[in-house]
């Protein structure tokens, strides 16, 4: 499969050596963590645990890996995704995440009131993401949290670019339509 983040070197890399794997880890761990967190794995601690587990599994399987740097990232993301979805299966429901406010970039010039309001909206958005199906959510995470281009998302998920665009549009539309009105926000 062609990985996300296209345009990088197509040179085949070996992950057999400790140094090579460590370099891969250093280059990708932030992306893998954000992906796991974005998929709704739970709290920061949960996402950290699953990120660590992703690299442990990759380390164990590193001798079987063959591909370039792009493929390595795609490989890691697939391991991560399987771990997250496995966890969902066991827990039967989306784990609670009460740490989102610690991961929001704020405008330094914003007033405390605006800051609080912004945090509230992002927290609400994070809850609403649970209303999306897995693919919709994953595509939004790849596009807007990891910053992947539509083409790269299509390559990673092995679907057409046009399909990715349609899914993004529909996911945003669903979020808009299902957004609770003010009364529901206050009581919810």
């Amino acid at each position, binding site marked *: 499969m062609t990985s*996300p*983040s*296209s*345009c*990088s*070197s197509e040179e085949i890399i070996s992950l057999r050596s*400790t*140094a090579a*794997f*460590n370099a891969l*880890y*250093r*280059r*990708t*761990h*932030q*992306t893998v*963590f*954000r992906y796991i*967190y*974005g998929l709704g794995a739970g709290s*920061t601690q949960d*996402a*950290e645990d699953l*990120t*660590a587990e992703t*690299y*442990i599994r990759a*380390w164990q399987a590193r001798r079987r890996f063959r591909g370039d*740097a*792009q493929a390595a*990232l795609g490989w890691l993301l697939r391991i991560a995704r399987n771990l997250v979805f496995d966890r969902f299966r066991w827990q039967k429901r989306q784990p609670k995440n009460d*740490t*989102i406010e*610690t*991961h*929001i*970039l*704020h405008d*330094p010039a914003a007033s405390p009131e605006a800051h609080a309001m*912004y945090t509230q*909206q*992002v927290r609400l*958005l*994070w809850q609403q993401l649970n209303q999306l199906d897995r693919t919709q959510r994953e595509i*939004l995470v790849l596009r*807007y*949290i990891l*910053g*992947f*281009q539509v083409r*790269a998302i299509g390559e990673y998920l092995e679907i057409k670019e046009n399909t990715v665009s349609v899914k993004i549009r529909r996911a*945003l539309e669903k*979020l*808009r*339509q299902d*957004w609770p*009105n*003010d*009364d529901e926000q206050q009581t919810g």
Partner: protein
Amino acid sequence: MMMSNKPDDNQIIDWLESVRPTPGAEFYQKAAHQPWAAGEHPPRKAGFFPRRVAAIAGLALLLVVVISLTSPSLEVLAQRWLQFFLPKTSDQTTVQIPISEISDPAGRFTLTIAEAEALAGFTARVPAELPSDFRFSGAAYEAERGAIVLNYMTQSGGVLRIIQSRAVEEYQQIGASAEVEMVSVGGLSGEYLRGAWVIPEVKSALDTPAKTTLPLQATWNPAANSQMLRWQSGEMLFEIIVAGGVENQPGYLDKEDLIALAEQMH
């Protein structure tokens, strides 16, 4: 009555893009014990703060502040006539910085250049030849500015960053006492200055949980060991920041070195 206050797509996208989760210090401490980290330096013990680490953290913080203080504002027209910098009315300012960027300053440079290019949607210019002692340590993509940041370091803690974006209507905020010098970069007009925003309480900030974002007071220090060069080529804005080198020692770059570096980027 049901009230309608639903966000539009742009608001939702803005909120999504503001979520930038980062692993905490505990994650990195555990990672240091994984088998692939063998041979790396052991994690810092709690409360142990060697001078060199402090210097590097302080330096990195200084750079983070410089980088984060960009502004699309046109206030510059009402102040000194500069093309790339926006002097503030004082030498004091407040910045919001995720503590993780202080405790692990190089942690965000996890991309290859090609990966950063893919995210940014343009091809990065890189130096044809690196200054001696500097080595590439990683790239980052700053979604807020649409910028690619290339990070280079020396063994002695010198840092060189090359930032490039299409955001030509963006100004770098500097202190009121900053002195900007007009220079020529390959026939293009550029601006050079020495100094940086410095955060005095960097050490105490490191004692706070890594996941938080703190408002910190920063002071413009015109004597800080940091230099900046900005210029524009076509629709692209370029910036080089160098900090931490020791004058007359390997790895130190002066104004002429920065201009020469800028002119051999392609």
